[in-house]
């Protein structure tokens, strides 16, 4: 204990005007590329993922533009196939799966549990480089003829078509390791690196969400790895596991693929649940309702999520008995998800709600995730799915979960932690406008798709029957509004980096450690002394005594630069030493 407190202030330059923090203690490009600091790796990931999201998002806008009229408008059918394939692959494998864990998980998780870093910082950096290697392979796939299999790579088409499929599957194999490294790191960090007093019942719910996510990442990702290896061998050596022409079984490929890819859905949504819990508790300033239920339902979803993969295969010709079992277990997933939504709503009840931008995203999430969840139950019904399978209904459903859920939660989380990451405030007015545009644009894009699907519009077609024109046009307009909102966010985010108001240490009056126990921008080693945790993450009544904020007063009253962070329990420093020893 004594050693840690001695080591920590090494980076401190003393009471100078310019505070030393993780951003400015070293500034060369090389120091960024070789950093083992979890915060900097989070920022590196943020830049890479934002780039991928931009590319994949522009592809989506192009698709919607093509679909604005029934016939060919913008691109040939083959081009359209490649565009929707790349949109899916980039969004799923290179953006959504790593997104929240790699950006916010990396940045926030060690801070929230009072650790100096993740357990394996070198592995963490390696994860980013492996991810980049995956991205390079993806670009190679594009240059070698592109991929038009859809993001699911179903055999036999994928094992017999040439082009970039080989490169693309290797890219997914490689990028999988980046996720495994992150998940492994988080599991060990949460188990072994918690500050004294940070018991399992005092973990912020974001940490619980990350914990459940990491379990899924570690258990599921290796299976997509071996699937991709077998697919590559199928192409190169014709080993005949999946290709019916060689005696293989294409449905077996679907089992392999969905054993990963269904849990991957929970890799994308569980961290979003974690962010939601933080946002709702902080901005209604009330203790989260049913802490343990939310925490454990995350783990329950993670586990149940492994037992339902076959509901993607109801029309594949799998056995009826397995379809029935999969359908039944799929209904069960609704229970923990429902528990969460009810608990969040109950937290809002009688809270003093503060409608800042992150909270707007949180409320939007509640609305859109609920639609996503209910439509999910509907496609989980065996007989209904036979009608809805491979229609726009499914497209609408998973965009409500993935985009309306995950991405909206990520946006909320980015706004929430933006002051901590960059030390700057964003423009609140513009942010609220953008949040409105995203909400309206999103619903306008995807709600018509639910209707289209139920009327029989199949997915993955560049052209369609005349009678679908109106709804498709509506959806295209929605996508443009959504795009406008997202570009507005990009604009004011970049602007705030240069001109934004300097952020105080705790602008939201939050009660978790990353706000209460660090400087406005955290120092290289996160905390000047290891925090001693004496209260739960949402005990605002206890936390107020420490930072004296609340209901946004902190934003106005606090001096932008707090000279020294308030320790959570100043009088108990001795206790901390004895506890540690």
């Amino acid at each position, binding site marked *: 204990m004594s050693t840690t407190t001695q080591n920590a202030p090494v980076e401190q330059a003393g009471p100078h005007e310019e505070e030393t923090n993780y951003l400015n203690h070293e500034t060369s490009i090389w120091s960024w590329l070789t950093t083992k600091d979890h915060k900097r790796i989070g920022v590196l990931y943020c830049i890479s993922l934002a780039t991928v999201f931009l590319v994949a998002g522009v592809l989506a806008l192009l698709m919607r533009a093509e679909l604005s009229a029934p016939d060919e408008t913008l691109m040939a059918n083959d081009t359209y196939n490649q565009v929707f394939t790349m949109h899916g692959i980039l969004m799923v494998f290179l953006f959504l799966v790593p997104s929240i864990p790699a950006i916010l998980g990396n940045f926030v998780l060690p801070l929230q549990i009072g650790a100096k870093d993740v357990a394996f910082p070198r592995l963490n950096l390696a994860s980013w480089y492996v991810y980049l290697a995956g991205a390079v392979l993806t670009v190679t796939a594009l240059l070698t003829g592109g991929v038009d299999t859809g993001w699911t790579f179903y055999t036999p088409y994928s094992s017999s078509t040439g082009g970039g499929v080989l490169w693309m599957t290797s890219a997914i194999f490689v990028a999988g390791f980046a996720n495994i490294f992150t998940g492994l790191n988080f599991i060990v960090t949460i*188990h072994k690196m918690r500050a004294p007093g940070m018991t399992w019942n005092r973990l912020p719910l974001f940490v619980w969400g990350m914990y459940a996510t990491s*379990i899924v990442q570690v*258990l599921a990702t290796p*299976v997509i790895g071996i699937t991709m290896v077998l697919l590559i061998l199928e192409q190169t050596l014709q080993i005949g596991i999946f290709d019916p022409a060689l005696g293989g*079984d294409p*449905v*077996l490929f679907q*089992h392999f693929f969905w*054993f990963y890819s269904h849990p991957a859905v929970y890799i994308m949504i569980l961290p979003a649940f974690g962010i939601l819990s933080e946002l709702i508790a902080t901005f209604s300033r009330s203790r989260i309702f049913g802490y343990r239920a939310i925490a454990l339902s995350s783990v329950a979803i993670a586990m149940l999520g*492994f*037992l339902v*993969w*076959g509901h993607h*295969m109801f029309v594949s*010709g*799998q*056995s*009826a*008995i*397995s379809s029935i*079992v999969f359908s039944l277990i799929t209904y069960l997933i609704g229970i923990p998800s429902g528990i969460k939504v009810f608990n969040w709503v109950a937290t809002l009840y009688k809270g003093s709600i503060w409608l800042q931008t992150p909270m707007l995203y949180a409320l939007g999430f509640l609305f859109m995730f609920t639609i996503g969840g209910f439509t999910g139950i509907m496609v989980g019904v065996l007989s209904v799915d036979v009608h809805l399978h491979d229609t726009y209904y499914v497209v609408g459903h998973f965009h409500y979960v993935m985009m309306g859920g995950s991405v909206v939660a990520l946006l909320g989380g980015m706004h929430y932690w933006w002051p901590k990451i960059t030390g700057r405030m964003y423009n609140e007015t513009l942010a609220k406008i953008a949040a409105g545009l995203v909400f309206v644009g999103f619903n306008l894009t995807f709600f018509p798709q639910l209707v289209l699907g139920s009327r029989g519009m199949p997915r993955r077609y560049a052209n369609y029957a005349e009678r679908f024109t109106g709804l498709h046009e509506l959806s295209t307009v929605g996508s443009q509004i959504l795009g406008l909102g997202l570009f507005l966010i990009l604009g004011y985010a970049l602007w705030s980096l240069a001109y934004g108001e300097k952020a105080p240490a705790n602008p939201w009056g939050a009660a978790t450690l990353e706000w209460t126990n660090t400087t406005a921008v955290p120092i290289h080693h996160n905390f000047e002394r290891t925090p001693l945790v004496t209260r739960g993450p949402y005990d605002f009544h206890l936390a107020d005594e420490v930072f004296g904020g609340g209901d946004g007063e902190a934003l106005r009253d606090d001096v932008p630069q707090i000279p020294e962070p308030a320790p959570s329990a100043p009088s108990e420093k001795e206790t901390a030493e004895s506890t540690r020893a």
Partner: protein
Amino acid sequence: MAHDGPHIVPKSVLLKVFGALIVLTGLTVGVAYVPLGPLTVPVALGIAGMKATLVVLFFMHLKYDNPVNALTFTIGTIFVLVFVTITLLDTAFRGDLGNVNAQTVQEIQAEEERAQQRQDAIPADSLRIAPSDYPDQNRGASMESDGGS
């Protein structure tokens, strides 16, 4: 290592475990020559499972280790079983639905109706004269073979 006195598994224990592993290897080879019928796979997997358990508990110290590590490994194993079992639930029962057919339900019903109508349209056996009185070839063929036997 700062942790006080790392647990050391005595060499004698390691050697005993090794002996047991060799014996079990011999056993599994021997059992392969005994015709066990449907029990062949379970017996082979059972012996392999015993060997793996010995390795995990003693060579990998899981018996003396932090329970979290044991829990981790157990969860991993459970999910392998889930993967195998549920996949087999499909592949072993593929095509278990009796009415799975290339035709749709409507087609089948329509065909049955047509057959019914033909049945009605066909004159009684005693009145059949021309080949056109036997519109359904299959039915006619089977009747002929019946008659031949």
